[in-house]
């Protein structure tokens, strides 16, 4: 009897069981609700972004027109020094500045993840970058059990329960009902028949999870035009398969342990609790102790102190700034220094003092994130969580990429305006059009895959080891009476 025939028969039996339909309805309803919650959150973000962009476009247009008129020598209107689009210092500090936007990723509706605590936009400015983002939350494992309800959560937490609910008594149940004896009196390898009974059930759970993903993708209007999105979707499905295989392996090992159906239910529930709840919480607790979050408040206080200190020694700050920018001195026409240059000098002095502290702060955050990443290997649930969030662009990797790209952009922005401030050039309409714009560069799906591969590989290996253990035990299950 072919394996497929065995599966078909099992499905025939399962189709007539109420448990399956309860699972389908429960899982489906929860999944759809979760998907709609993710879609609503994403739509809200997109709306905010559209509003920001529209507001910026309007400001930019009106300032651009004003600049054109001023440049053409129109003096009919008086312009305040703080709203003068010709001043590189003023525009650099944020007059009509564009927004640096982290747009929701293609599969964003599938996971909210960290997005509800991550800022997704900021305004460009020559100010010190540390004041832009406040986000020190490391991946919070409590999110696993108490996070916002999204499809990733349903897959992470509920999908294993469905697998376990459908498979926990696949062997013990038949033994207790007495059908196993009639099955095993037939000339078939017990590992194959029992394996088919388990696989038929697990495949149903897998089909449910994959089906739910596709329905969610269709209902939430994920645009599938980009092949990269397809790749991500394929990876998302692969993660579901691998995570499912892990739980199937656990169930197989427990089924082979010749326990009663009740005992195997309890064991599987304990495994679920350990993998999905306890291990992640332990990992988080350990990381919090070994790598405590550096204090953002302390850093901000120090920056203020450094700025105050620099202002108190304004002459020193100015002197060392001019030493670094001899070109400015060369054509200095004497008299009082440009207040914009003074403020640049003060910022420069403060940042010089703060530089090592920033570095230490970033290093501490990085170390914490790396520690959290390596602790992920403790639990396939953590690996899977990270993978699903990354695929939907709701994890911390994408946010870090955004921060890094922001840094580069910030430096470019500063350069653009500082150089013009120093050379006392006012902005021309040509300059206006050349103001740097930010565009988030998405990580390619293949680069993402390389990052996810080790965790998924480990989970798959674990699944195979468990299944092999279970397979060995199933032979013995044929003799256990």
């Amino acid at each position, binding site marked *: 009897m072919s394996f497929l025939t065995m599966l078909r028969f099992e499905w025939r039996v399962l189709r007539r*069981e109420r448990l399956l339909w309860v699972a389908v309805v429960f899982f489906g309803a929860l999944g759809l609700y979760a998907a709609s919650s993710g879609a609503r959150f994403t739509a809200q973000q997109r709306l905010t972004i559209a509003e920001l962009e529209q507001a910026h476009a309007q400001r930019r247009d009106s300032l651009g027109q004003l600049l054109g008129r001023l440049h053409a020598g129109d003096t009919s209107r008086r312009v305040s020094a703080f709203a003068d689009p010709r001043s590189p210092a003023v525009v650099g500090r944020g007059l009509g500045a564009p927004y640096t936007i982290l747009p929701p990723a293609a599969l964003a509706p599938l996971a909210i993840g960290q997005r509800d605590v991550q800022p997704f936009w900021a305004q460009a400015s020559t100010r010190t970058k540390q004041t832009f983002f406040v986000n020190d939350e490391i991946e919070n494992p409590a999110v696993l059990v108490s996070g916002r309800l999204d499809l990733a959560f349903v897959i992470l937490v509920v999908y294993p329960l469905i697998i376990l609910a459908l498979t926990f008594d696949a062997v013990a149940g038949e033994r207790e009902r007495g*059908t196993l004896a009639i099955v095993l009196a037939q000339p078939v390898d017990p590992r194959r028949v029992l394996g088919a009974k388990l696989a038929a059930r697990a495949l149903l759970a897998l089909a449910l999870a994959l089906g739910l993903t596709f329905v969610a993708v269709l209902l939430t209007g994920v645009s599938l035009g980009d092949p990269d999105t397809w790749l991500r979707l394929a990876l998302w499905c692969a993660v579901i398969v691998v995570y499912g295989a892990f739980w199937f392996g656990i169930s197989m090992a427990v089924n082979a342990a010749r326990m009663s159906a009740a005992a195997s239910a309890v064991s599987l529930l304990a495994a679920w609790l350990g993998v999905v709840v306890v291990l992640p919480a332990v990992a988080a607790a350990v990381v919090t102790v070994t790598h405590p979050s550096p204090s953002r408040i302390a850093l901000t206080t120090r920056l203020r102190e450094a700025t105050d200190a620099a202002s108190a020694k304004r002459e020193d700050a100015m002197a060392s700034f001019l030493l670094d920018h001899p070109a400015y001195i060369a054509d200095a026409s004497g008299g009082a220094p440009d207040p914009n240059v003074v403020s640049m000098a003060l910022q420069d002095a403060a940042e010089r003092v703060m530089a090592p502290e920033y570095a230490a702060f970033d290093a501490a955050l990085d170390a914490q994130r790396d520690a959290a990443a390596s602790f992920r290997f403790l639990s396939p649930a953590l690996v899977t969580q990270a993978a699903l969030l990354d695929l939907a662009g709701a994890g911390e990797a994408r946010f870090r990429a955004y921060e890094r790209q922001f840094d580069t952009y910030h430096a470019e922005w500063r350069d653009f305006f500082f150089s013009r401030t120093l050379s006392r050039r006012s902005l021309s309409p040509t300059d206006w059009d050349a103001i740097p714009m930010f565009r988030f560069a998405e990580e390619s799906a293949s680069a993402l895959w390389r990052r996810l591969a080790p965790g998924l590989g480990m989970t798959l290996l674990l699944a195979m080891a468990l299944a092999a253990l279970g397979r060995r035990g199933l032979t013995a299950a044929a*003799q256990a009476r």
Partner: protein
Amino acid sequence: MAYSPLLEARGLTKRYGDTVALDALDLGVNSGEVYCLLGANGAGKSTAINCFLDFVRPDTGSALIGGSVVADDPIGTKQRLAYIPETVMLYGNLSAVENLEYFATLATGTRPARPDLLKHLITAGLTEVQADQRVGGFSKGMRQKVGIAIALAKGADVLLLDEPTSGLDPKASNEFHGLLGMLRAHGAAVLMATHDLFRAKESGTRVGIMKRGRKVAELRTDEIGHADLEQLYLQHMHD
């Protein structure tokens, strides 16, 4: 040996801790024979039958089917064997035909056509209407009939029956033994554990009496009357 019995136990021994379930049991059942295993509760009858199914591995000795050692070829030796326990437990949500279809496919590797399945169920004593009913609502007797139908579909010539008629009403029991007689006439070798001395004498060709894992007596049923069999049985139980 000049002839080889279809079913043979050679020095079967099985211990569970201090309990000796089987103690060097020897027996042989030939084609066309119904061998009835008698004995008190716990005498080792089921353990003996389970050795032929590889549900129990003997500590020493071996169970043979058609000359092959069961423990060496558990799958091969099940090809010609049918097992009917006290209650044939089936998939309650499936009909008799669907259950038979599954077990027959498992047994033969090919999917029998519905008319064949129906034919076996009807031969086993079910009606066509019953064949399409959910097995969940079947009586014990009807389940045993599906068990026989599985044996028929499989073309089994070795039958292992573990108290197949205990709990059946006399009519159902009578029908069951009628079917057994038919299978025997077709050359099946039947090993049956039972507590029913009357049926053992009626449809058995030989009986073996077991006590604490040992065979303490063995005789042909045509050599002894009903009363004498009961007498002999009780005598062995007492000492």
